[in-house]
């Protein structure tokens, strides 16, 4: 189960290898339980955050009610731009959902120690981001009550879904991803819920926690089967993470539209998803560690390690942007060349430059170790990356549809107030679930943190990372 490759052999260096990150300020298991359980206490800030989130969600809910009542014409679509903010925001939220499973599954298999204290937050973020993303195709189809037609089941209409359609692939990919991410989150939570159950004094809460912990007892047999099951879940989740955004990219790449029909799309989308997901982890984890005084759990070493991942994925995404331009030029296809010129220097220059500055230029600051270890800068950068990645999807969706093959079809597009209300509502919906989660369940994996805290011993440990504490 350990996510630690090797024990620390010397004093902590500022540029410590990601696998070796430890928690020198955490002395024993009791401290871990007490400090993480303390985050569950009520506070005025939490209630204020929840109130704002619910208010934002209601803005979106109101817009949806209005749209269902009065029709999809309020969505701001201008033919042929019949994909707009809903699909952009769908891809944005699916992308956000990628870092969670990457951190919890892929980094687990790679034994990357820096995941230990941030993976619970990221997993919860994944589940709520995918829940948010899943709303948008349903909103986009205009008649949400017909959504179940996409699911294959024997019916009196004798109709079956078309398995060659990327939209049906999406249904399978997103529903599998949501199910497995939720399962992964819950399985990791079971031992931690048992810790809360054993501390709880209130009989009603204790009963609920007993049910949720499934009678977990920390026996050797339970741990053995748990470890193996967790490993296999991670092994399943790893290709799943890569497949989901690849499938989402097929929504575009399968169409013969300028700027979309490219084989580069799956890796380009996956790298972008990891990039934006890590940025959202910063947006959430940096205020959280400050608010609950958890700086000795999510240390500067952890942030430094995540910053390296962000820098790397920024370089991958930036390369993909440049390769797209190269392919358009090298292909010799006039439509492609005209489209890409229009994207950067024509009608959509402003959105393309927001994307390029936020996703390619600003993350280059992370070459500086000083900035990688500056939480304030990382938080500010995360906001820019979130904006940049939303605009990346805008740049993919709108300029292509507005500048297709026939010049007489070329048009403009502007989101309507309903579209904007849905964006606000989606953030409200996401943060509402997240705040409800952090109030009830531990934001860090108690069990896994205990695994890297040196255990109490009668005799000093032979390899130097133990000793009585």
């Amino acid at each position: 189960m350990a996510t630690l490759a090797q024990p620390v052999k010397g004093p902590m260096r500022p540029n410590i290898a990601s696998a070796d990150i430890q928690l020198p300020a955490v002395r024993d298991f009791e401290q871990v339980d007490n400090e993480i359980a303390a985050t569950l206490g009520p506070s005025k800030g939490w209630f204020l955050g929840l109130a704002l989130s619910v208010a934002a969600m209601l803005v979106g809910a109101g817009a949806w009610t209005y749209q269902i009542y009065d029709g999809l014409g309020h969505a701001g679509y201008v033919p042929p731009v019949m994909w707009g903010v809903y699909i952009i925001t769908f891809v944005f939220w699916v992308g956000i959902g990628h870092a969670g499973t990457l951190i919890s599954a892929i980094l687990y298999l790679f034994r990357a120690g820096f995941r230990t204290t941030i993976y619970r937050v990221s997993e919860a973020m994944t589940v709520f981001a995918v829940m948010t993303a899943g709303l948008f195709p349903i909103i986009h189809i205009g008649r949400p009550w017909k959504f179940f037609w996409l699911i294959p089941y024997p019916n009196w209409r004798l109709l079956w879904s078309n398995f060659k359609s990327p939209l049906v692939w999406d249904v399978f990919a997103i529903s599998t991803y949501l199910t497995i991410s939720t399962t992964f989150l819950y399985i990791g939570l079971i031992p931690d819920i048992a810790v809360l159950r054993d501390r709880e004094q209130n009989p009603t809460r204790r009963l609920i926690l007993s049910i949720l912990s499934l009678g977990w007892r920390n026996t050797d047999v339970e741990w053995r089967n748990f470890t193996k099951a967790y490993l296999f879940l991670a092994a399943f989740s790893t290709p799943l993470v890569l497949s989901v955004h690849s499938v989402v990219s097929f929504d575009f790449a399968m169409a013969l539209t300028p700027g979309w029909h490219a084989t580069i799309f799956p890796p380009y989308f996956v790298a972008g998803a990891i990039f934006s997901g890590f940025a959202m982890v910063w947006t959430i984890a940096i205020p959280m560690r400050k608010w609950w005084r958890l700086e000795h759990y999510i240390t500067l070493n952890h942030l430094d390690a995540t910053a390296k991942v962000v820098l790397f994925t920024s370089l991958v995404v930036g390369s993909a942007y440049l390769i797209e331009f190269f392919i358009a030029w090298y292909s010799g296809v006039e439509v492609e060349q005209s489209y890409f010129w229009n994207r950067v220097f024509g009608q959509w220059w402003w959105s393309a430059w927001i994307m390029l500055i936020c996703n390619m230029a600003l993350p280059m600051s992370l070459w500086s170790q000083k900035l990688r270890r500056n939480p304030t800068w990382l938080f500010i950068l995360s906001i820019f990356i979130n904006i940049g990645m939303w605009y990346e999807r805008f740049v993919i969706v709108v300029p292509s549809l507005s500048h297709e093959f026939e010049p007489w079809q070329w048009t403009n597009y502007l989101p309507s107030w309903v579209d904007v209300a849905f964006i606000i509502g989606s953030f409200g919906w996401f943060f509402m679930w997240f705040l409800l989660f952090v109030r009830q369940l531990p934001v860090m994996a108690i069990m896994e943190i205990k695994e890297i805290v040196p255990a109490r011993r009668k005799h000093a440990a032979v390899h130097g990372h133990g000793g009585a504490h």
Partner: protein
Amino acid sequence: MAYGVVANFRELDAVVEAVGALKKASVGKFTVYSPTIHHELEDAIGGGTSKVRRFTLIGGLLGASFGYWVSIWTSEYWPLVVGGKAIASWIPYTIIGFEMMVMVGALSTVFGMFILNGIPRIVVDPAYRAPFSHGDYGIHVDCAPDQESAAMELLKKAGASEVQRAR
């Protein structure tokens, strides 16, 4: 109903030592409680490899087969005839097969873990103590009443902070 004795340990090496001593003495079957996973404790206990992997393999194969089957059968039942193109095309159906493999394989892994661990557990384990999830280690030795004294002696000698009868 649990019988035998339960011991609390404060230190990891003490509980590892107790496990070794219990295996040598053969006083009865024992269960070890630990707040987290420790490889040296796992090594001391032994216990072999988990059978969860069988559930994973069977679930994964069933899921992949179902994914391919549902898409191929549907195509044959409701054919979409597009000039020169295959009615059932395995390349796009691999996406369905893959997603179903992950879904069923992962869920059957969890199901297997539940079966092998005997959870959800409704009956309270009388040997379990709250500190075992907090910071203490524990050992429950399920032995005959005439061996309880010997077991208690052995556990105390290994460094148990507290030893009681499990009733």
